[in-house]
């Protein structure tokens, strides 16, 4: 906006500066993107080139060997599905629960409402890593250790406070008058909730889901701590560490597994980017 106003007047003076700034920006973009480029490149390099003393930023003989090693590793596909399953379960459950809770704290006024909101805010700051120890015993007592529940349940809990806090803005943005209108037209509260409010808040749910999906997909600590013996219930990070956790890492394998693990998140990010931006934007206009 400000540029639109000022640009014409200062155009000539600022031009060399702007060119310098633009070159700097592109250069920085290259540096920032380089680790990802190197990851994908190394995943496609033949073994001899990955572990070479003369690393080159290109390859003339792309090969799928590293990917083959990763996928031939026992149960890798299963780990992938487990990761997907855990993340999807968390996304759906926390979105629904958070939607209800956000509706409660924005569209009703009741005792302890502010207290609850402050508690939701404070709950976001709880370091989940510090809770690994009690969570471990809790899961043991539930007989949930070594099952996917031990990953799903804690992540629902940890995604909720933020999801509620974020959805609050979206629910608030739906005009009060709409609700009155719905009641006048004879819609019940439940009907309003699911047939009017839910679709309107849906973009917000998507934006919120991105964050729950990513935090769950990326989880490494719980996967490491709670899935001890039942390796068939492991998730992707564990599969990756198989290649990494040795004296002499198989770098090609590590990079291929990293690529496989990063790509769904990248796709998710790009696919919902519009929602993400409008989501954050929408929340900001609140």
């Amino acid at each position: 906006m400000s540029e639109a106003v000022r640009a014409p007047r200062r155009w000539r003076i600022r031009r060399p500066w702007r060119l310098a700034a633009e070159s700097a920006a592109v250069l920085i973009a290259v540096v920032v993107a380089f680790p990802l480029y190197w990851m994908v490149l190394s995943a496609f390099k033949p073994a001899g080139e990955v572990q070479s003393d003369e690393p080159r930023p290109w390859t003339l003989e792309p090969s799928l060997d590293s990917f083959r090693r990763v996928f031939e590793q026992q149960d890798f596909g299963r780990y992938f599905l487990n990761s997907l399953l855990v993340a999807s379960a968390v996304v759906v459950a926390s979105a629904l629960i958070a939607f209800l809770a956000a509706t409660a704290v924005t569209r009703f006024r009741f005792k302890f409402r502010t207290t609850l909101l402050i508690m939701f805010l404070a709950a976001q700051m709880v370091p989940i890593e510090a809770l690994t120890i009690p969570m471990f015993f809790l899961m043991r007592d539930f007989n949930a250790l070594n099952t996917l529940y031990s990953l799903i349940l804690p992540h629902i809990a940890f995604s909720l406070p933020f999801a509620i806090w974020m959805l609050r803005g979206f629910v608030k943005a739906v005009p009060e008058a709409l609700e009155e209108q719905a009641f006048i037209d004879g819609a019940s509260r439940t009907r309003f909730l699911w047939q009017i409010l839910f679709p309107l808040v849906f973009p917000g749910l998507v934006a919120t889901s991105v964050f729950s999906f990513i935090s769950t997909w990326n989880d490494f600590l719980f996967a490491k701590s709670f899935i001890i013996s039942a390796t068939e219930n492991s998730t992707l990070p564990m599969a990756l560490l198989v290649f990494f956790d040795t004296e002499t890492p198989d770098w090609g394998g590590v990079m291929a597994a990293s690529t496989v693990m990063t790509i769904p998140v990248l796709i998710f990010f790009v696919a919902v980017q519009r929602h993400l931006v409008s989501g954050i934007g929408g929340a900001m206009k609140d």
Partner: protein
Amino acid sequence: MSTTAGVRDGVRVRKSRGAAARPPRRGARAPRRGGGWTPWLYLAPALVVLAALLAYPIYQLGLISVLEYTQAQVSGGEAATFQGLANYTELFGDRKFWDVLLATVVFAAACVAGTMAVGCSLAVLLTRIRLVPRLTLMLAALGAWATPAITGSTVWVFLFDPDFGPVNKLLGLGDFSWTYGRYSAFALVFFEVVWCSFPFVMVTMYAGIRAIPGEVLEAAALDGASALRIWRSVMAPMLRPILVVVTIQSIIWDFKVFTQIYVMTDGGGIAGQNLVLNVYAYQEAFASSQYSLGSAIGVVMLLILLGVTLVYLRLLRRRGEEL
């Protein structure tokens, strides 16, 4: 994770302040219906989950930290005995704990400073350039943002690998091992952390700068204010709420870094030289079966972050934020 919510609040505070002339929001926007039990019905699932899987574990964390709880108690061989504050006395009497605490604070502070500096300067840069370079930088940042902590960690270790990494070749460092020395290992983790957390700061600050009305800047320029003056007297005060929120989120986030340290320094570095509180607690509990000591460290972390949260709440409250 809690980042965006905070941003929204920051921005909203600024907006509502600017609209002071309008009638108070409470009357205009606040929900009117009491609704009887309905809100509690809606809240029930969330409260059940949070009570069982957040509040109860926190209580348990505190409980374990005052018990004698080692392998014998875990397997049920011995009953857990009440120790009072003995675990804390042991912890606070240990030099290593203070070392780790200091390392955690210094490391987190460095990460926050680095992230904020890079994020803010790039946000300003973004406002000065045209669409194509802007999108290029945004896209690259989006990629870094989306990268999972664990894959980011493995990739950065590989980049700085003494034998096969391109960085040492580029800098002519030979076979210098970054993970061997304490400070170079911390530096390596620092680079990764800044890399994956600056995009959030950049995008948020950029949105914040763009939200400043052009007329305000134009008016200031017409009044003869210099660029520096415009920044100091117009933009900085308007951006301060976002800045505060982003900083606090970064503090909270960087204080509890776990995956990067654990993966990049192989569980806390040689002889634990790269431990931070989180990893230390984990190692005490799951590697040494000292669950009580691990829990006590967890409680210390919880209290520190609670302190940061209280500061945050006070800042929100002082601005007259309506929850």
